[in-house]
């Protein structure tokens, strides 16, 4: 998505400035305070139900931030309501359409655009302007994801970037395969060589060790498309653009990769089936080189702190002179915090204050990410030495975030992804060739775009 004029005006209004992280005191004190410790009289109290998916150990961290927020904002009580992932779409949709939505909902990037387009969430542009929110603090790719049609609807947290750009690999496996453990593959050709050396298959062709992971979903395909200088849509989001030469070439490369190294897509599916959700095949050994987002650092720390690993960038197609390494932000991942439309103005303002706390203010936004050793969408938060001292690969993380390009999406995005994924799978099963799959997917996606934009006239 291009940054709108309004967005630019807001960006220009404020000069960029470094913020000092103020985490220790707040997080040290906050967990000792009971959530809901509002000190104001009950009749003046505004209660914010905050639905989010920061579960398990993050609940306590979030409770700490909420406790501090309530001290700083007497009269506002925030109920931290972590939800389960099960049937998330249904839960959020029902909450919004049911007439009594929670005041703040953690929403995916796709949802933000879809809900904003439907008028179900309140734009926060006026608050951003009134509170002089410095949007230049955010990575451009991060904040761009929060806009829809000249209005901003949320502020980001955590990063949508760093999602597709990073690769993690086992140095031990690289060494055992005769590869240089300090030099991860940077191009498709190098990845081919590495995968050939790292992959181990049984006599019957099944995969024992997958040299390099490959994702045939729409998100996986598009991440590869962008390192082959392709794009999903045109700048104005009205035309499908993945049916380009690069689009077909990318899919063909993926098909060849799957066939040459793994004996086809079905072998890959059989291999994946061995692992349950939450398991980390890279740490367990069966995967040697894996695309993974920044949460991997945490998984390694939790499951196998001694794991000997390296971090690289997603290999790009060096045969294409226009191609280079770049990640995509907000295409398949990305979160913001929406305020449903139609709230009482005082409640809406209280909700905004809380959204600002967890997405913009150091004591909430920076500290919450820092506690998880995850990067923040706020650039200055990531300059803390806490990160660089605890994570030897931090420069790679920052490099990935800086390389990320914003990718515009449309309200019927889930339908476009569904079509694209279906045709990618058909191609992977050999039911249709790369050209045919991309052509068919593009034709159907374009029809969806036309239908959507037709209603916007």
């Amino acid at each position, binding site marked *: 998505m291009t940054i709108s004029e309004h967005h630019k005006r807001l960006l220009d209004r404020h000069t960029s400035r470094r913020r000092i992280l103020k985490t220790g005191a707040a997080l040290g004190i906050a967990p000792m305070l009971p959530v809901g410790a509002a000190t104001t009289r009950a009749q003046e109290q505004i209660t914010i139900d905050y639905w989010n998916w920061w579960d398990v150990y993050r609940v306590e961290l979030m409770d700490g931030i909420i406790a501090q927020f309530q001290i700083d904002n007497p009269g506002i009580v925030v109920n931290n309501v972590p939800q389960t992932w099960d*049937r998330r779409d249904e839960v959020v949709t029902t909450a*919004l359409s049911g007439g009594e939505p929670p005041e703040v909902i953690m929403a995916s990037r796709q949802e933000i655009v879809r809900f904003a387009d*439907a008028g179900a969430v309140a734009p926060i542009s006026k608050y951003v302007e009134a509170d002089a929110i410095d949007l230049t603090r955010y990575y451009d790719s991060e904040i761009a994801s929060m806009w829809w049609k000249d209005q901003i609807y949320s502020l980001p947290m955590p990063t949508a970037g760093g999602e597709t750009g990073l690769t993690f690999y086992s140095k031990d496996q690289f060494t055992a395969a005769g590869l240089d453990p300090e030099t991860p593959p940077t191009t498709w050709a190098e990845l081919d060589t590495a995968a050939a050396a790292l992959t181990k298959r049984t006599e019957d062709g099944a995969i024992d060790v997958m040299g390099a992971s490959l994702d045939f979903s729409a998100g996986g395909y598009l991440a590869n498309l962008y390192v082959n200088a392709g794009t999903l849509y045109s700048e104005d989001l009205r035309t499908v653009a993945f049916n380009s030469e690069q689009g077909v070439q990318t899919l063909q490369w993926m098909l060849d990769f799957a066939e040459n190294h793994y004996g086809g897509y079905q072998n890959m*599916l059989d291999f994946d*089936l061995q692992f349950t959700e939450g398991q980390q095949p890279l740490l367990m050994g069966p995967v040697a080189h894996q695309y993974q987002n920044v949460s991997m650092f945490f998984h390694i720390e939790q499951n196998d702190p001694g794991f000997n690993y390296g971090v690289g960038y997603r290999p790009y197609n060096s045969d294409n002179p226009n191609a280079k390494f770049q990640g995509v932000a907000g295409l398949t991942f990305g979160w913001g915090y929406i305020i449903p439309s139609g709230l009482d103005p005082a409640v809406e303002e209280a909700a905004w204050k809380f959204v600002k706390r967890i997405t913009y203010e150091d004591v909430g936004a920076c500290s919450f990410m820092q506690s998880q050793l995850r990067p923040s969408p706020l650039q200055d938060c990531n300059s803390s030495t806490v990160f660089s001292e605890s994570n030897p690969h931090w420069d790679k993380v920052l490099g990935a975030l800086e390389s990320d390009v914003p990718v515009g999406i449309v309200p019927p995005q889930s339908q476009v992804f569904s079509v694209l994924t279906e045709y990618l799978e058909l191609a992977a099963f050999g039911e249709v060739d790369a050209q045919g799959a991309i052509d068919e997917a593009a034709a159907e996606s374009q029809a969806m775009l036309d239908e959507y934009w037709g209603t916007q006239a």
Partner: protein
Amino acid sequence: MSGLPVTDRTYSGAAIAAPTRTPLTWRIRKYLGFVFISPWLIAFLAFDLIPTASAFWYSFTDWNVISGSSNWVGTANYREMIEGDRLFWPSVRNTLYYVGVSVPLGIVAGFFLALLLNTKIRFQGAYRTLFYLPAVVPTVAATLLWIWVFDTRNGLLNRALGVVGVDPIRWLTSPDYSKQALIIMSLWSIGGSMVIYLAGLQSIPEDLYEAADVDGASWLSKTFRITIPLMTPTIFFNLLLGIIGSFQVFNAAFIMTGGGPVNSTRFYMLHLYETAFQDSRMGYACAMAVALFMVVLAVTLFVNWSSKRWVFYS
């Protein structure tokens, strides 16, 4: 009461005054039944009848559940289902296949199991409990368990088949076997119908079997000439429940396969769910729900009609 005389006589001939109007309590009593069933009635209206009727209405609109916008589109949703939705017919075919195979299989397996557990053996209660247990295991937990069972390389099922020389089958990763896998999994919970069959079996009068024994009838003969005919009301009941439930198959595909591979497990309800909650096209989803309702109703009526020929109530 208007036809009653003002006065009447008792059998003893004493004149008594007939009430000029019905006492209030009697008039209230007439409606008292509604009061007692009101909790159910209110819930039925609120959660069944009104939503169902609303779904009929919304099926003729382009209702977007998020924006709340709803415009009358006539039969456009139904036409799109038939002509425009490329996933509609695959989902119908998958669902019909599932219903056609899983329902008869479930009935035969449940009935056979009930017959076995109705015999007088040691630890009968323990066996019954064991076979019923899967029926109370949450679907999600059971589904995760079955993913391991169906694992191509190390799964329990392929290992067992390997013992008798069968090559590994790609239960969940091949479009040729994925539906069969989910059908096999559906047998996991036949404990529910088994219990109903057991209750039915125990209601068959013992003297019928004793008479058959006197006549020298074999076990097979008794099963086909006494047990099955007298069990037809129970079979009919389980058949109806099975058909209705199978048309709504959702959880296993939602969790295990997500509709894949290559849409081979994209069942009707999964397609409906994604249309409603991922795409926010609730008007179209309502049309799909109404179409499903009509099909299930038609099949149910047909089975009900056919029951006159094969269900024996005495």
